[in-house]
């Protein structure tokens, strides 16, 4: 949970010596990294096209779209809560941005701004409902999930007449916004999407917040033992509302990416993606019960998921069995991770 593992007080006879490698392997992220490496090596061997530079770009892009959301979802899980509305909130954010710009004939940046405010409000709603009603987050965000799904469809049909939005590609500010949220550039023969930068940035910020700020301390405490945290003066309620707003913020980024990369938004999308985010966080070592996990872990989890789901395609395995392979690979990667960690811990 901390970046610097201070060497133990020199010469305490109660401490068995431990090599650096072993200490490294004991860290949660590094366990997951071993799993990721194994998946990478595996697909490099079985899938010819997996190791190409262009494939790497595709895999990284797929991982980044999950990873951007997995970061705040991991933080939220460390803080002891869930967000089932995270998937559709991405779509809501994109819809708001697109429909506002179109209907008001406003500069796309205005739509983007309105969407930011509205999405943050949705996150705040989740958080405030949670701390006010003291209902489990599963119920609250399930309610928001269903309501947003309905609103996405109902409002889009009401406003656009169909289930998708109108194109805003020809509106003012579109190219600049596209550069920010959905551009891509080529390094050598690898085509990299800007989402990868967003992803790396978010992981870095989240890691800093978790390990080096008061807020990070509060997140761990709120998830690890909310009663104790409250008793020693941690603003648990504010922390949780903040976490939901962080999820909303990242949903906004993802939503804008969706909008500016496809220009038109389908109102029915995003359903089910919330689980991909949770999966990435859990594979990366977050505890379902809260109080433990890391942002880097969530990134590794997203990468494992991205590699596996695309690797199966590159390996050209029978698509009927896609889900089977996906499940088996994820399970094996996680088992390997746990096995490595146990070995590291067992040998003193």
């Amino acid at each position: 949970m901390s970046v610097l593992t201070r060497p133990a007080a020199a010469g305490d006879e109660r401490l068995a010596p431990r090599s650096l490698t072993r200490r490294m392997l004991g860290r949660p992220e590094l366990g997951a990294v071993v799993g990721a490496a194994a998946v990478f090596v595996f697909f490099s061997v079985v899938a010819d096209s997996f190791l190409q530079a262009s494939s790497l770009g595709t895999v990284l892009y797929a991982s980044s779209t999950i990873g951007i959301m997995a970061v705040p979802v991991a933080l939220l899980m460390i803080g002891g809560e869930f967000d089932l509305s995270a998937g559709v909130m991405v779509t809501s954010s994109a819809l708001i941005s697109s429909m506002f710009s179109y209907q008001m004939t406003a500069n796309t940046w205005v739509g983007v701004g309105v969407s930011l405010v509205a999405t943050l409000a949705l996150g705040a709603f989740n958080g405030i409902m949670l701390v006010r009603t003291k209902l489990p987050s599963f119920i609250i965000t399930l309610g928001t999930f269903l309501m947003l799904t309905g609103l996405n469809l109902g409002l889009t049909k009401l406003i656009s007449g169909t289930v998708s939005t109108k194109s805003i590609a020809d509106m003012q500010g579109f190219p600049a916004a596209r550069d920010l949220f959905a551009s891509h550039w080529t390094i050598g023969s690898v085509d990299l999407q800007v989402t990868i930068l967003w992803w790396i940035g978010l992981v870095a910020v989240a890691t800093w917040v978790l390990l080096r700020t008061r807020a990070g301390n509060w997140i761990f405490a709120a998830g690890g033992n909310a009663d104790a945290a409250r008793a020693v003066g941690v603003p648990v309620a504010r922390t949780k509302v903040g976490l939901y707003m962080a999820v909303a913020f990242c949903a906004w980024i993802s939503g804008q990416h969706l909008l500016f990369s496809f220009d038109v938004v389908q109102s029915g999308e995003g359903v089910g993606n919330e689980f991909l985010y949770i999966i990435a966080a859990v594979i990366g070592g977050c505890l379902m019960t809260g109080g433990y996990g890391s942002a880097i872990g969530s990134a590794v989890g997203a990468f494992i998921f991205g590699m596996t789901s695309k690797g199966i395609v590159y390996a050209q395995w029978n698509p009927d069995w896609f889900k089977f392979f996906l499940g088996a690979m994820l399970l094996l990667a996680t088992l390997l991770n746990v096995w490595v960690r146990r070995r590291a811990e067992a040998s003193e």
Partner: protein
Amino acid sequence: SSTGGKRAEDRAKQLAANGSAVNTPHWTFAMVTHSGAGDTFWDIVQSGAKQAAAKDNIKFLYSNSDQGDQQAQLVQAAIDQHVDGLIVTLAKPDAMKDAVARAEKAGIPVITINSGSEDSKKFGALTHIGQDETVAGNAVGEELDKRHKQHALCILHEQGNVGHEQRCAGAKATFSGRMDSLYVNGTNMPDVQSAIQAKLQSDKSIDSVVTLGAPFAATAAKARQQAGSSAEIDTFDLNAQVATELKDGTIGFAVDQQPYLQGYEAIDLLWLYRYNGDTLGGGKPVLTGPQIVTKDDADALLSYTKRGTR
């Protein structure tokens, strides 16, 4: 089933093993669709494609995702694999625009199938094979009128699915009576049944139910019976059960768009293009439907549906 799908498939495999009907190189063609997992319709499309692939000495790759951005990523993955031809559906055209453009840039010929006839040409595809969902919907509306229906119910088994919306909207556009929609949870048959049941109980004036997928027609028939309604059940697409029930008269009519043909022709046309530079349709979409099938066609259809090719 004397002409079982398994046997046909085995025969196709045998053909491939014996060296195929042609001696062109062993090209790889990929198909990327917007289907969900385990969909009957897309299963038949795949069967057609496989049959053609076996004949044409093609390696056939299939992948699918019902999320637009995921489907685009799958197209990219196919490009990464340097396939020799690409077949995509354009249910969410805007999401696919970039991906299709990249395929063209990489020199991969693209054929679009099923949905997206308007955009196909614009995106630079060789040709489009299939039937527009709206056109199919229109046909249903007209047929309902022909049968003097007043109040129809359109069952959408996947909320927010563009193709489904277009089918219902198309039917609504040509139907002169009133048409309601009902969303059901397509992965939960008992829920489909009870929801249709509830709708029929709440509004006795409904005299026809249109399901958007073949498996849901039988369930709708069950719900009708439970609700004590006399509404006619009609459906998009075919399967063995629908064919039987058409024959029994449990189902009024079905709209077929010949999915087998969409898969088969797509592969075949890509082969022709690579082999001989041929294209079909003269810049216009090649339509595979809609075809209204009723009790009269049921007998012939029964054996085809049983082996999974219609």
